[in-house]
């Protein structure tokens, strides 16, 4: 009668979101590198397909809408990205970055308008991902402890 069944479901959901966001960020980082001739020469195997960019944009935009809802305490922040038990803590961690709202709005605009993402945009994405990584890791610790 431990918490393990519920925790395991929540953890699987968070892994899915964390991996999708991280892969999207990697796609944008690669796209950025490909704009630079030196990097292109240095990493000859580096490539990103238009489909990968479209998929990354689409997922990141959906996630950003949800993050904005979360930061504004909107009740419609969707649970499909992360369990409710994690949302509050994620929100608290994100709010520690006072420039986040501004950074994310710029990022959202650039992706929507299919503009080249900037280094600041990539930093904002990294912040979202590493914070998600912390949440996922915390949940994993709970899962391990519940098992004993």
């Amino acid at each position: 009668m431990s918490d393990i069944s519920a925790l395991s479901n929540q953890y699987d959901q968070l892994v899915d979101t964390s991996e999708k966001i991280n892969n999207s960020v990697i796609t944008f980082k690669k796209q950025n590198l490909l704009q630079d001739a030196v990097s292109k020469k240095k990493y000859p195997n580096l490539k990103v397909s238009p489909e990968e960019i479209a998929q990354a944009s689409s997922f990141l935009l959906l996630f950003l809408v949800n993050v904005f809802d979360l930061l504004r305490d909107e009740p419609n922040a969707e649970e499909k990205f992360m369990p409710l038990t994690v949302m509050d803590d994620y929100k608290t961690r994100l709010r520690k970055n006072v420039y986040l709202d501004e950074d994310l709005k710029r990022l959202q605009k650039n992706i929507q308008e299919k503009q080249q993402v900037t280094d600041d945009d990539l930093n904002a994405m990294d912040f979202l991902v590493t914070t998600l990584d912390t949440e996922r890791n915390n949940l994993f610790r709970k899962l391990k402890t519940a098992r004993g």
Partner: protein
Amino acid sequence: MTQFLKGIFADQANAALKMLARLKGNDINADMDKTFLANTIHLLESLYTDVMKIIQSGDLDIPTLASSNIVRYNTFTERLQTIELFRYLVIINYGEPEKYFKKKIARIYKEINCLQSEPIITTISNSENYYWALPSYNIIAVPTGEEKNLLNLPDMYHEIGHLLDKQHRAYFRDDFIPKLSRFYKDEEQRVVDEQRDPKLISFYRDKHASWLNGWIMEFTCDFIATYLVGPAYAYTNLKISTLSSGKDRIYADFPSHPSDEARMRAIFFMLHQLGFGTEVNDINKLWQEFLKNTKNPVPHNYTFIFPQALIEALGQSVLQGCQKIDLFSYPDQLKKFELPISKILNEAWIEVLRNSPNYKVSEEQKILAISKLI
């Protein structure tokens, strides 16, 4: 940094290979479930392939991808540890108790008419973590030495409930979800209409979310366990509640689990549905005395956390779900089998309550009786 990342990814791939070598070796117990073993090997091979893909992709050579690669590494590590903790250790520790439980669970599944593949029962748990189930891996863990106990065994039926809930969730809860939403929506509206404390709105939303995220599942498993093993489950719940009472937790709710008090009401409701009115009266007398003696605090607004109407609505829904999938209830088992394990568990509880000094001998005899059955 790139060299360091390459090093730790290589180390990760090696860790998966070492586990694979042990699982493919000759010292795995011959009675270990072949599918479980094969799936574990598959999961490790797939993890190894994914790690190698990253190593060979050249991504680890790119410094600007470092933070993303660290997130990848952390995720792989957790994946590896999940396999290690919930599968590898189950296989490595498979021994005589597991063989015994394998036969016992086969018998229980026959008696309850459960058509799912039987789970692996492992004794890698301990008395603190007690019984737990991981439906995604089809395992139930019980404390070491549990093959020599009977009074906790009704909780095995609760864990079986988790496996059934994973497969038949819609049958158990779909009728109930709209009723739950309606209840909390109405309460939120009442806050507005009656100008009550606005803080109640977030309180209701929080409780509504807990119902959806954990409580429905736990109540469902309690209902299923009661349906399958009858009054014995109420006694086992009382035994567990004794531990909670020392921490003032009888009425406390957690995001994953409802309060012990609410769970007992759920159990009583299902027992009533099965025709165990007399037994409910007896156990309820004991329960009320227990509540009186333990004097645990009742939280503010408790009535709105676990309303009886919601518990009963979910109970009805689970009862219909059990009937739809043709599970044999405890009364059904009594009719169809001369001595089902569920009956032995009920007798064990009656015996320990009537004649506790003699219980040790009686328990040993009953365990022997189960051994003969399986």
